[in-house]
């Protein structure tokens, strides 16, 4: 076997070995799971990429989503996303897919509020059986305000009505 061939094989083998290591590290990188945050640079409020999110949703959530779609399809004016309009998280959107959204300073909240006026489990937003979205205050210290009234009971959210928690304001949009 010629010297040249052997040298090429030797270097080729090292290259393949390192390629394996690099691919393995890439697998680890893509394997870090948790909350996916998609940066979208500009301020255009394009409708969230539904197909992308559906693919990313875990099985049980997908199931809920399907249930909601079969039950709530045809409802006109149903909100599709929750938007933070004021506060440190301004611009954050969460797609409404039939899941309960929790707000608070606790790390496992859907929207983690970094706000001195927020309680750790401050409020939650969830759909009732008809697909109407409800906001409920979870006994917070400083209260949750819908428009200007402090919530005392679970209340349906009208489209576009501001919900204020400390310095953060969120609203539901189509």
């Amino acid at each position, binding site marked *: 076997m010629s010297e040249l061939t052997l040298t090429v094989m030797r270097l080729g083998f090292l290259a393949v070995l390192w390629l394996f290591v690099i691919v*393995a590290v890439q697998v680890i990188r893509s394997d870090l*799971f948790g909350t996916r945050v998609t940066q979208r640079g500009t301020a255009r409020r394009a409708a*969230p990429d539904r197909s992308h999110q559906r693919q*990313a949703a875990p099985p049980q959530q997908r199931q809920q989503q399907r249930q909601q779609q079969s039950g709530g399809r045809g409802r006109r004016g149903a909100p599709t996303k929750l938007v933070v309009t004021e506060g440190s998280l*301004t611009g954050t959107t969460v797609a409404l897919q039939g899941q309960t959204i929790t707000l608070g300073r606790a790390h496992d909240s859907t929207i983690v509020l970094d706000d001195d006026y927020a309680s750790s489990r401050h409020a939650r937003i969830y759909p009732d*059986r008809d697909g109407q979205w409800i906001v409920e205050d979870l006994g917070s210290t400083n209260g949750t305000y819908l428009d200007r009234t402090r919530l005392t009971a679970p209340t349906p959210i009208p489209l576009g009505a501001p919900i204020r928690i400390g310095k953060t304001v969120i609203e539901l949009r189509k």
Partner: protein
Amino acid sequence: MSSTSNTTTISTVGPPSRRNTELAMLAFAVIIPIFAYANVGLAMSDELPSGLLNYGLGLGFLAAVGHLVVRKWAPYADPLLLPLATLINGLGLVIIWRLDQSRRLAARAEAAGQTFTAAAPRQLMYSALGIALFVAVLLLLKDHRKLQRYTYISMFFSIVLLLLPLVPGLGMNVFGARIWISVAGFSIQPAEFAKIVIAVFFAGYLMVKRDALALASRRFMGMYLPRGRDLFPILTVWAISILILVFETDLGTSLLFFGMFVVMLYVATERTSWIVFGLLMSAVGAVTVGSIEPHVKTRVDAWLDPFAAFDNGTTDQIAQAMMAFGSGGTVGTGLGQGNSDLIGFAANSDFILATVGEELGLAGTMAILLVYALIVERGARTALAARDPFGKMLAIGLSAAFAIQVFVVAGGVMGLIPLTGMTMPFMAYGGSSVIANWALIAVLIRISDTARRPAPAPAPSPDAEMTQVVRP
């Protein structure tokens, strides 16, 4: 509508099953050793080796069996553990086969009055047995938390395993170390299996005692000093590992068990003082035994000055290994073109890393060590993701054992620490090692499957809905 610059979308991503990724990586991990095998054949005898097809099919079959079992019975398991282990096992087989072809080793065996037997076919059989045990563990162990029931039984069992080589008639004294037992013509190294069993005991024990060990302590000079009675377990394990060192003259096993215990103690209690104590105690033990025990003493001398030991004929292995690493250089001499068979004794077991160092060079050795590091990283990651404390402790203990074993062997061969009689996991020739390490990977895969499985959806509560409907 307010216009903002940081527009983000938050959506939850569940841990997906990564079985197809695993399959692709596994195919890659089978192709690399086949390439290496062809390379060795072309370099040593100018033709493709005749066993290429059988070897490729054999390794591919073993990998496929492993993959199918994981796909069926551990669908959410970590996608990298199996391919990484397969790659090292396959490369180890190629290097053992390459050393089988060496005329020097054959001549050396004949000069010693023995018949030279090829080690590669036996190692392939051990790998098959290892995969069989891997499958058996995954099938029989549906939930790793069941192991918690056997905490104290496994303590007893592991001590029995560790002491077996000392039983007269059963234990064998091979080249100064009593770490083998002979059963029905096979020699077994019980310590390899004991490391898994003892990890179960440490995990179960520390899970119960962690609060006492972590909280009941006095603060002194920035360190937490544990109470005297809490020192008892660490003293016991230390005494056992010193006994192993003295009676079995096996530095590696003793270091492995004590190191593993200290790592798990640290993880359980988050107290740095345990690491300090552990290092002090192992240093005291190692220095004392090293200056008394003659077998250990020769190894320490060979470590301090390998070339003096080479000249006066005590042992030439470490010096030969260093020369092998040196002649390998950065990119190596190429597979099948080195002279690492000059190491002679244990060239394909303890010293297999020297062959890697010579024929693949620094670049190849670093890649292999990175593959080991990735296995350890996936183990530690599994421990982080595990939801139950027992699984956390077991996963970190097994990965620590794996890491310490790689460190002890690689450090010994490279002259960083005194040489110990341990084998490079998966790579080196030795049935016990390969089989036990496949079982270790199986336990890690089982824990990672449980850890990464998506949490079941909470049961719908009809009462909650009812209370919401009623309004004043």
